[in-house]
C-alpha cells in the first residue's frame, strides 16, 4: 500500500500533462519555433510556484509526511555535462516531441508507437552507462 500514493501522484501528473497538451509533438515543435506562449507559460508558472514552495519549505523547515527533513540535493557543479548532455537531450526532445514523463502519458493515451521511443531511450541510458567513464562530466 505504501506505493499507492505514488501511483496516485503519477495519475494526477498524467492527467495534467495530457490536458495541458505539453505531451503533444506539435506543442514542442511550436515551442522551439517560439510561436506560442503556451509551453513557456506552463514552465514559468510551474517554476514560480515551485520556487515559492521550495523557499517556504526551507524557511519554515517543513517536514515531509514521515516527519523527516526535506532534502534538496544540490546538483554537482559542472558546465560540460549539462551543456553537452542537455544539448543531446534537446535534439531528441525536439525530434521525438516528447521527454521522459510525457512518453508514459502518451502510452496511456494510446499513441503506442511512442513505445519505440521509450525502448530507444532505455537503450540510450544503457549506452550512457557503458561509456560514462570516458565522457567529460
Amino acid at each position, binding site marked *: 500500500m505504501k506505493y499507492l500514493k505514488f501511483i496516485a501522484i503519477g495519475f494526477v501528473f498524467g492527467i495534467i500533462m495530457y490536458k495541458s497538451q505539453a505531451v503533444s509533438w506539435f506543442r514542442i515543435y511550436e515551442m522551439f519555433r517560439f510561436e506560442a*506562449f503556451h509551453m513557456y507559460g506552463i514552465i514559468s508558472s510551474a517554476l514560480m510556484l515551485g520556487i515559492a514552495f521550495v523557499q517556504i519549505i526551507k524557511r519554515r523547515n517543513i517536514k515531509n509526511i514521515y516527519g523527516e527533513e526535506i532534502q534538496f540535493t544540490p546538483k554537482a557543479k559542472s558546465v560540460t555535462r549539462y551543456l553537452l548532455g542537455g544539448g*543531446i537531450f534537446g535534439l*531528441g526532445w525536439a525530434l521525438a516531441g516528447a521527454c521522459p514523463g510525457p512518453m*508514459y502519458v502518451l502510452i496511456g493515451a494510446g499513441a503506442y*508507437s511512442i513505445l519505440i521511443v521509450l525502448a530507444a531511450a532505455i537503450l540510450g*541510458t544503457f549506452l550512457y552507462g557503458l561509456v560514462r567513464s570516458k565522457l567529460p562530466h
Partner: protein
Amino acid sequence: MIDAILQPWPWYVSGPLIALVMLFLLLTGKNFGMSSNLRTMCSIGGAGKVADFFKFDWKRQVWNLMVVVGAVAGGFVAAHFLSADTVIDLNQDTVVALESSGFINPGEKYVPDEIYGWEAVTSFKGLMILIVGGLFIGFGTRWAGGCTSGHAISGLSNLQLPSLIAVIGFFIGGIVMTFFILPYLL
C-alpha cells in the same frame, strides 16, 4: 465546470498543478524527476553486470516506477474520458510551416500521423526518427543528470545553476533540431 475540464487546460492552470505534483513528491520524501526510472529499468534488466552505473539497489527506486504506472493510467483516463476532442490549437505560423513540410491538417490530431502514425513508423525514415530521438533522450538526459522535470522544474525551483545550464543546453539542442535538422527530415 465539466466543459472546462473537457477542453484543453490553459497554461495558468497546468503549470501551477505541475508545481503541486513536485510538492507532493517532496512531501512524500522523494524528488520530481521522470528520467531516472530509465536507469532503474536498465538495472532491473541486469545492466549492472556490464556497467557499474547500474549497480545500485533498484528496489529503493520502485516508487519511481509506480509514478510511471500512474502516469500511463492518467494519460489513458485523460485521453478517453476527459477530452472533448484531440485538436491542438496551434499558432497559424506553425501550421503553415508544417504544411509546407507536407503535414496534412497539422494540429487536428493530438500527435502527428506524420511522426507517430502506422505508415510513418513502418517506413525506414520514420522508424529512424523515433529510434534516434529516443536514443538522444535517454543518453542526453542521463549525461545531463535530469530532464525537463528534474532540471527545468525541480532544479530551477531550487535555484540550481547547473540546472539552468542544462536547460540552456536543452534549448540549444531543441533549436538546432527544429531549425536546422527537422526541415531536411520532414
